[in-house]
């Protein structure tokens, strides 16, 4: 069981900055995120896009902002559980919470801060009948172990980088690779597009475009996929062992919506007059995932919410301790790693 003071769900900018504000109060943090790297949307969706409304940064790339935040919080040694989605929450008799991920990792903390942004990123699933019936019986949305496709007949659908890259990779592993995309054009790194062209010319990838998968067939497991070309009503029957739709990720509020929290407008209602606490004491929601009158989904608002939330968390964890906020310019920053940053002392010396 991972133990910490504040368990943060979501490692986007708001979640990361929480580590800093908590650290100033000597509170330790651990973050859970469904994505394999920290940074949330900033790292996953638009790392190369500029942001112009971070105070003090006339322009900063989203990816750079994440790198800066990681650097800023380093002295506070946050823990990370990445690539796992927070699934359930239980309250223990001592008033602390246990959050368990979809992979069974358990985390225990007196305070939970949900900084989940838009929710967890889940694969986008094509709208096909019987889709769920064949999930894990021939259909997968994420390739975990490429070896299971050895000598199999695989059909990949999609037009982005992951569809291209996996088609290239599996061309050497699977006995047959078919790539289906709704357009003739692919959006991906130039190298990947050219490589797929080459493999197609060599007959190692069977390319069907512009086309769509329209139906799935099979008894116990997936046996056949029906493809239709956009410009031809005839159906193409393809015998396959595996169908891998790669249509990117989309955010879903997901299991958090089952935690008994008050939800409004697909977001978690919080008390914005005080500390961004939810209807369950000890559980806070900060950043894009919360809502209150006048809410704006801005990174800068998430930073503010994180700061106030940490003060409240401190009082919750240490109800009898007296504390007042201290400026970093005055108090410096003392990391859990022994590092100390502080303003240089002025020299007092007479001039003769």
């Amino acid at each position, binding site marked *: 069981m991972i133990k910490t003071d504040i368990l943060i769900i979501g490692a986007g900018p708001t979640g990361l900055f929480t580590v800093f504000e908590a650290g100033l109060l000597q509170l330790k943090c651990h973050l859970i995120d469904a994505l394999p790297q920290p940074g949330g949307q900033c790292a996953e*969706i*638009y790392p190369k*896009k500029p942001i112009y409304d971070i105070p003090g940064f006339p322009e900063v790339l989203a990816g750079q902002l994440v790198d800066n935040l990681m650097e800023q919080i380093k002295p506070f040694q946050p823990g990370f559980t990445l690539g796992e989605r927070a699934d359930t929450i239980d309250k223990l008799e001592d008033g602390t919470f246990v959050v368990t991920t979809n992979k069974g990792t358990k985390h225990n903390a007196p305070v939970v801060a949900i900084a989940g942004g*838009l929710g967890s990123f889940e694969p*986008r*699933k*094509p*709208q096909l009948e019987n889709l769920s019936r064949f999930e894990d019986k021939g259909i997968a949305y994420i390739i975990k172990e490429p070896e299971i496709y050895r000598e199999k007949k695989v059909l990949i659908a*999609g*037009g*982005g980088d992951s569809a291209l890259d996996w088609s290239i990779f599996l061309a050497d592993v699977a006995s047959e690779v078919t790539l289906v*995309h*709704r*357009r003739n*054009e692919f*959006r991906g790194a130039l190298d990947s597009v050219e490589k797929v062209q080459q493999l197609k010319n060599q007959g190692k990838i069977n390319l069907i475009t512009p086309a769509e998968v329209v139906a799935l067939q099979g008894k116990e497991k997936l046996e056949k996929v029906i493809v239709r070309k956009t410009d031809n009503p005839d159906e193409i029957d393809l015998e396959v062992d595996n169908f891998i739709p790669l*249509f*990117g990720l*989309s*955010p879903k*509020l997901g299991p958090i919506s089952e935690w008994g929290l008050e939800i409004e*407008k*697909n*977001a978690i209602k919080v008390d914005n007059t005080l500390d961004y606490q939810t209807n369950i004491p000890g559980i806070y929601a900060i950043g894009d995932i919360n*809502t209150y009158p006048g809410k704006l*989904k801005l990174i800068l608002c998430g930073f503010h919410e994180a700061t106030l939330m940490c003060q409240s968390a401190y009082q919750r964890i240490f109800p009898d301790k007296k504390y007042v906020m201290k400026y970093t310019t005055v108090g410096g920053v003392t990391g859990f790693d022994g590092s100390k940053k502080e303003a240089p002392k002025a020299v007092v010396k007479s001039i003769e």
Partner: protein
Amino acid sequence: MSDVKIKITDREGVLHEVDAPTDMNMNLMEVVRSYELAPEGTIGICGGMAMCASCQCYVKSEHELPEKSDDEEAMLAEAFFVEDNSRLGCQIHITPDLEGLEVELAPEEG
């Protein structure tokens, strides 16, 4: 005159005729959100970067709209429920030329 009239059919099939300002640097997705014609959190999820298809709509009138950018083309190539007249609302800026535009919101992705 800085407003244009736009007819928007929401996902329940209800027709709304709204005034959309041309001087606020707004796009169609933002107009839909400002009039709350689709629940918050179901439209404009990526914020208007053509990186999700939650603001997909079907253009019903004959207006000449600006060409799709590569980003919009690519997103529509992967979106669901796409028709020939599909556009991403976030990529349609409200200009005086859009007076009388008629659109219908595409269904929400499951």
